[in-house]
């Protein structure tokens, strides 16, 4: 999965591990490599390393080569993604990138002199949303749902599974996924490489605003799925979905409902009660732990154990 972009000694080390358990690799120039393998571990020459001193250390050239290879040796063709600090591979692996940001006035031109990368490996966890599915739809279909979780707690995996279950169980519903960062479906040549259901239309690599506006006009969706609502612009996009009479399922970075209330972008919409359901996920018992489901009045409908 990663052997074509990682230096040999790193891909050799990963051969000793079960890739299904691996969710993140953090590489920093001249620092010890850390992976998320059901917990944080050092990556050594032959898989996990018990001691920090045995951990692999990446150098500047190797890190730069990872990004070069991830861009199919064509950084110019991935500059728009680079500007936003990430590259998504065809298999849905997302590489977050840090380095020196080149600005032209207030606009980001590119990132250079890369200093660290965070490689996130997507996983299909079948039926991970099944337990709470009855709380997230009624006889008319899906409800407006916001999935809340901190980074790495399985929001996108949950969203993907929810879309699959809705699509496969309620075939009359048209689902549109606006996959801005190509993480939900990992589209390659326009086709999803991760299964997201049979009756699903996907816009990938476009802004939420574009996906929603054009999607509603041309694809007549019943439900729109969106990942990572982070700012007022994204919230406005959600409101436009509601205004068009279409349901949405979206995710956002927050620890819990209280944390969500403290976010400026969400204050107005929380008052307007556009969300019918909130699902809170955590890493308490591993990524994807469902903490509970709340309704629009923030009454708990389902409590995770």
């Amino acid at each position, binding site marked *: 999965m990663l052997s074509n972009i990682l230096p040999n000694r790193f891909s050799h080390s990963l051969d000793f591990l079960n890739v299904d358990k691996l969710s993140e690799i953090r590489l920093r120039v001249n620092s010890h490599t850390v992976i998320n393998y059901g917990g944080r571990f050092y990556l050594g020459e032959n898989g996990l390393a018990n001691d920090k001193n045995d951990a692999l250390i990446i150098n500047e050239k190797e890190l730069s080569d990872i990004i070069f290879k991830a861009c199919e040796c*064509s*950084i*110019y063709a991935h*500059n728009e993604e680079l500007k936003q600090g990430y590259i998504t591979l065809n298999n849905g692996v997302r590489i977050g990138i840090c380095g020196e940001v080149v600005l032209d006035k207030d606009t980001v031109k590119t990132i250079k002199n890369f200093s660290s990368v965070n490689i996130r490996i997507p996983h299909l966890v079948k039926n991970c949303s099944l337990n709470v599915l009855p709380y997230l739809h009624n006889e008319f279909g899906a409800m407006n749902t916001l999935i809340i979780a901190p980074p790495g707690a399985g929001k996108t995996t949950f969203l993907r599974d929810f879309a699959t279950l809705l699509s496969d169980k309620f075939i009359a519903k048209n689902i549109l996924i606006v996959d801005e960062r190509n993480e939900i479906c990992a589209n390659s040549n326009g086709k999803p490489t991760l299964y997201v259901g049979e009756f699903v239309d996907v816009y990938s690599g476009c802004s939420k605003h574009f996906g929603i506006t054009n999607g509603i006009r041309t694809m007549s969706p019943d439900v729109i799925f969106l990942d990572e609502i982070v700012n007022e612009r994204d919230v406005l996009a959600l409101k436009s979905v509601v205004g068009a009479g279409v349901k949405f399922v979206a995710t956002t970075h927050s620890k819990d409902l209280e944390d969500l209330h403290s976010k400026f972008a969400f204050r107005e919409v929380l008052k307007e009660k556009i969300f019918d359901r909130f699902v809170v996920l955590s890493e308490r018992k591993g990524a994807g732990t469902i903490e509970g489901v709340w309704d629009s009045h923030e009454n708990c409908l389902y409590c995770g154990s």
Partner: protein
Amino acid sequence: MNILLGAILLVAGILVGMGFSRGYKRRYLFLADFHMFLEYLETNFNFVQDSLKQVLLNRQTVYNKDFNQFLASLSENIENIQPFLQKWSKEQKILNDEEVVIFVKFFEQLGRLDCETQLESIKQTKASLINFVNKANETHTKKGKLSTQLGLMAGLALFIIVI
């Protein structure tokens, strides 16, 4: 016997002359192909922005043998280009030192720059290259013919001396 030896020397003279002439032609064609490749890249990067691998895959029908062979090797070594370019620049016999510097510098950066900078690099390389292409063409036209004629004359001279 002398006639046969004379004929052999005549043919040898012509072949040596043609060999020199061919060298000038190869250099001109290589530089002209490089210029054409830069123009193709410029258009591609301005619009569709194919990956470099895709760009190199689409090359076969367009270029002459030498440049096509170079692109084929480049395509195989694209992920580790510096050692390849070092080896190539030592082994190649087509370009002169000045031309090699421009050539290697461009390919070292190809694919490693953002779009705007990559386009600027193409623009600059094209500007430097055009003089070399014109000179190579001039050399090919003048010296190419001259070499063939000199070869023929030397061959004839030897033929006459021998018989």
